[in-house]
């Protein structure tokens, strides 16, 4: 019974709907152009904003960890006041000395096992002064485990000279620092971490991450040498991690902080402005999509309302010949669905072509990928919009009094 009913539905209503649409080719073409234009705008703007955001996120998060785990700040502790006593407190905040994360190996292993965390890299990091001859620059020493750190920030692809090598007295420096101190590959660099802890290292590679601050200040060494320089034997100061879904970083950070009792900072906290910008962009895109969608829906609805009037007499004849109200209703719903489907197929094609044109002929600032799922998704939404938009005209058609409709001239 059910396949028969579906077959009947597809055949009779589909046939009448298609013929009605073909009867007024000009009218149908015009509304198709309208739908196609709307869908093209939606597809293009969605791809553009998605591509733009992916690009911004990649550039920003390409040079920083998603979640950084650090020891809690040191605070002055107070004794609880005795009963009925009042305390006048003069509290001078403590200087935050460089400290290691206690028992960091256990925390690293726990993070390694977490399913939503992609990469974990312990880092020891602190300030130092770099010298060459009489030139000086303040730098940040970053002691890394090379394999693990590569998963957080890909330095090797950013190298413009030399190779990715730390340890055994080798260091990686940024282009800005190399320029300031006049350093080239193989040159000696003197690092002074204070209290007489001094090391001389070879420049093994020069990187350019594209962020001025990092290129001017970061000096990558291995863990052991940095620990010695910073007087933190066996310790680490930060655990850098990346997460699978960057927009869950704040939740992951909160969970890590709760579990480890440490401070965990997500990129979302440290890049509040960026996150705000991304969210406003998404909201704007969403609004453009909704309003274009509404315009398309009204276009479909008005064309079908006209079509109902144009076909009043035919509807009367069909009803007299034994067509049910539901059949008439479906004839117009199918018309709306067909218009949406066909218009969105054309529109998605135009949108795709616009994106390709942008990628090949545009300013070339970044590449916009078109997610394959976007096109069928847009078509399904447009088809549903068409069916919904046709609901009112279809209802009017179904409610026509056949005795009156037949004599409609």
């Amino acid at each position, binding site marked *: 019974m059910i396949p*028969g009913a579906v*077959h*009947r539905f597809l*055949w*009779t209503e589909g*046939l009448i709907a298609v*013929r*009605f649409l*073909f*009867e007024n080719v000009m009218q149908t073409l015009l509304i198709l152009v309208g739908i196609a234009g709307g869908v093209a705008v939606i597809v293009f703007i969605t791809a553009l904003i998605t591509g733009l955001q992916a690009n911004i996120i990649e550039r920003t998060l390409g040079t920083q960890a998603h979640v950084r785990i650090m020891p809690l700040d040191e605070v002055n502790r107070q004794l609880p006041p005795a009963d009925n006593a009042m305390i006048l407190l003069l509290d001078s905040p403590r200087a935050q000395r460089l400290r290691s994360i206690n028992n960091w190996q256990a925390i690293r292993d726990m993070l390694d096992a977490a399913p939503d965390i992609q990469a974990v890299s312990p880092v020891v990091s602190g300030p130092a002064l770099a010298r060459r001859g009489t030139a000086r620059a303040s730098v940040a020493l970053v002691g890394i485990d090379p394999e693990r750190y590569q998963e957080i920030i890909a330095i090797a692809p950013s190298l413009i000279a030399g190779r990715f090598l730390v340890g055994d007295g080798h260091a990686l420096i940024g282009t800005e620092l190399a320029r300031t101190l006049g350093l080239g590959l193989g040159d000696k660099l003197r690092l002074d971490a204070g209290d007489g802890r001094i090391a001389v290292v070879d420049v093994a590679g020069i990187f350019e991450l594209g962020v001025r601050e990092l290129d001017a200040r970061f000096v990558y060494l291995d863990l052991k040498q940095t620990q010695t320089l910073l007087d933190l034997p066996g310790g680490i100061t930060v655990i850098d991690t990346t997460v699978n879904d960057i927009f869950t970083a704040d939740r992951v950070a909160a969970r890590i902080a709760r579990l480890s009792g440490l401070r965990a900072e997500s990129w979302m906290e440290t890049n509040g402005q960026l996150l705000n910008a991304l969210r406003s962009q998404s909201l704007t895109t969403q609004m453009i999509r909704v309003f274009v969608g509404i315009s398309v829906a009204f276009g479909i609805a008005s064309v079908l309302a006209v079509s109902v009037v144009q076909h009043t*007499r*035919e509807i*009367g*004849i*069909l*009803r*007299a*010949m*034994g*067509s*049910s*109200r*539901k*059949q008439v209703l479906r004839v117009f719903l199918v018309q709306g669905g067909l218009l949406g489907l066909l218009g969105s197929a054309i529109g998605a094609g135009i949108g795709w072509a616009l994106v390709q044109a942008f990628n090949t002929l545009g300013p070339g600032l970044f590449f916009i990928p078109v997610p394959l799922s976007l096109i069928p998704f847009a078509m399904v939404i447009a088809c549903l919009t068409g069916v919904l938009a046709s609901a009112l005209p279809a209802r009017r058609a179904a409610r026509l*009094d*056949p*005795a009156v409709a*037949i004599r409609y001239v």
Partner: protein
Amino acid sequence: MSDPASRAAVLRLSAVSKTYHIATPQEHEVLHGIDLRLESGELAALVGPSGSGKSTLLNLIGLLDTPTSGELYLLEHPTQTMDDAGRTRLRNEAIGFVFQFHHLIPAFSVLENVLMPLILRHGKPGADDIEQAQSLLADVGLAGFGAKKPSQISGGEQQRVAIARALVTRPALLLADEPTGNLDTQSADRIFELFRQVNSRFQCAVLIVTHDNRLAARCSRIMSLVDGRFHSSASASHRP
């Protein structure tokens, strides 16, 4: 009801009234207690001046409208208790319509127009449906016209297509509303002749609403409607 003849009636109306604009100042009764009985094989003409209620009565009989009071039985189905879907189904199965202005659907070919009642009933037409439609087209003298569009044929030809369409479901009752109203005399005669043939060949009851007394006189029975009541000559005698 005990009368055996009443069970064979195709159509039976008893005390049917129709009032428009009920409970408004414009309220007026168009039909006043109509009694009517139509048997299979009858060829009846319904005549009357404009405004006499002919169209209203035809709408009621064609199940396009419902009476305000009274009972209407089609093939002994009590239609006044049916819902819209039930009346629609019965209309599709038991009634064939022919209208004054042919009322073919311009978006479909002649053959598709003839097949339309079957398409509405069960979707894609089968080979036997198409064969039947084509033989009906041949019966009305339009063999080979199937692929044409309604706009490509004359008014008389369109009316023949409409008759073929009305017959494709083998209805028990054929209703014609001024079927020759806008045809020239010659075409009108041919159309009327076709009704006569259909009537004798398919043994369906035929009810023709007409202004044309000349045509009415050639029917086996004439019912005259005046001001919503059958005139005294309503049960006119059968004529050959």
